[in-house]
């Protein structure tokens, strides 16, 4: 069962989790990312620009939906 006591309702909703890219698998369109607690996740990257190690992504339901930008 998901833990809904955490910061995020991780499985649904209009929710996104900032993550840092640790490694990129360009061929499969996937990236290994780390969240704020250091947990690792495999993330689909088809919707964002080519990602590089160290980039910050906003991840929702296993998919990166935006690159985080400083503006």
């Amino acid at each position, binding site marked *: 069962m998901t833990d809904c006591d955490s910061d995020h309702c991780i499985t649904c909703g*209009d929710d996104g989790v900032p993550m840092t890219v640790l490694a990129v698998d360009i061929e499969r369109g996937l990236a290994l990312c780390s969240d704020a607690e250091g947990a690792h996740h495999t993330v689909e990257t088809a*919707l964002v620009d080519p990602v590089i190690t160290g980039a910050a992504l*906003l991840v929702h339901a296993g998919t990166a939906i*935006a690159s985080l930008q400083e*503006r």
Partner: protein
Amino acid sequence: MKFVDEFRDAELGRAVAAEILSLVEPGRHYKFMEVCGGHTHSIYKYGVDDLLPANVELVHGPGCPVCVIPMGRVDDGIALAHADGVIFTCFGDMMRVPGSAGSLLDAKAAGADVRMVYSPLDALRIAKQNPGREVVFFAIGFETTAPSTALTLKRARAERVENFSCMCSHVTIVPPLKALLESPDLRLDGFIGPGHVSTIVGARPFEFIPADYGKPVVIAGFEPLDILQAITMILRQLEAGRCAVENQYTRVVPYEGNLRALQVMAEVFELRPHFEWRGLGFISHSGLKLSEAYADLDAERRFSVPGVRVADPKACQCGEVLKGVIKPWECKVFGTACTPERPIGTCMVSSEGACAAYYNFGRFAREREVV
């Protein structure tokens, strides 16, 4: 973590709260709707409403995808979960949403193979690991989640995973907002727009709100400072006598949205003529189904589902909560018959639901006020 910590700075929060206080007219009552359940969760968790003047009221909107799923739709999912050979996959919160005769969690306890997944890709992985079984993914969520489902269906097609299908219950945000704006029950002064839906759809779809209804919209992030700044921006618009769509969440939301996501959604989905929302009833063109090109991956075509409409329990007032007509604590069963452990209504299930968010965080502040 960068992009998180700096938006939780308490000193800055107090400064923005002081600015809000300077912008409100003392004799006027302001009512703003935060459309998104993620905002509701943050408001209660961080006590954002405690920092607001008494005449600034936040009303919780319909933006929690679990909360808007009607009971009949849950029953359809449970029927699929009990079908021979099926592994039924869904997000964790969805497992606890009550149908007319129990939840998916109850179905699991009764022997159905129901599994929680964190993403549609997890469901596809289960299908690949179980080639002799049919794997159904119960897809829920707004435009934030729909691209993830669409990409997974494209992967399933490309990798020829034939035992995978999707029960699509994705919804879109604009039609319910129009329904709310047309509702005579509700008087609003402005909207805190949904940040992550806007990451996908952009800001343009909300332009009808100032244009047709004369209300400001500020798209906002989910940290406490984001929400406070969005309220400041709405108040500034009201003070200047103008209304427009503004974007507080520029670090994530481009005005045009994510064009790749919109493209993949257009390829995989099409609008349903109408879709039932809990508490809001049937709303035209508010739900998505799989397009003809992906019809073979549509679980509702692959299997038989009851498709029966089920009325909400009489005691449950989720509809009024979702429309912002009543506050969670004003519901007759809040915190007594209906709790996060044993929810009657969907708003008490997801942590983004207004009732669960208030039960978990906000009620303590209210108890302090009452004392």
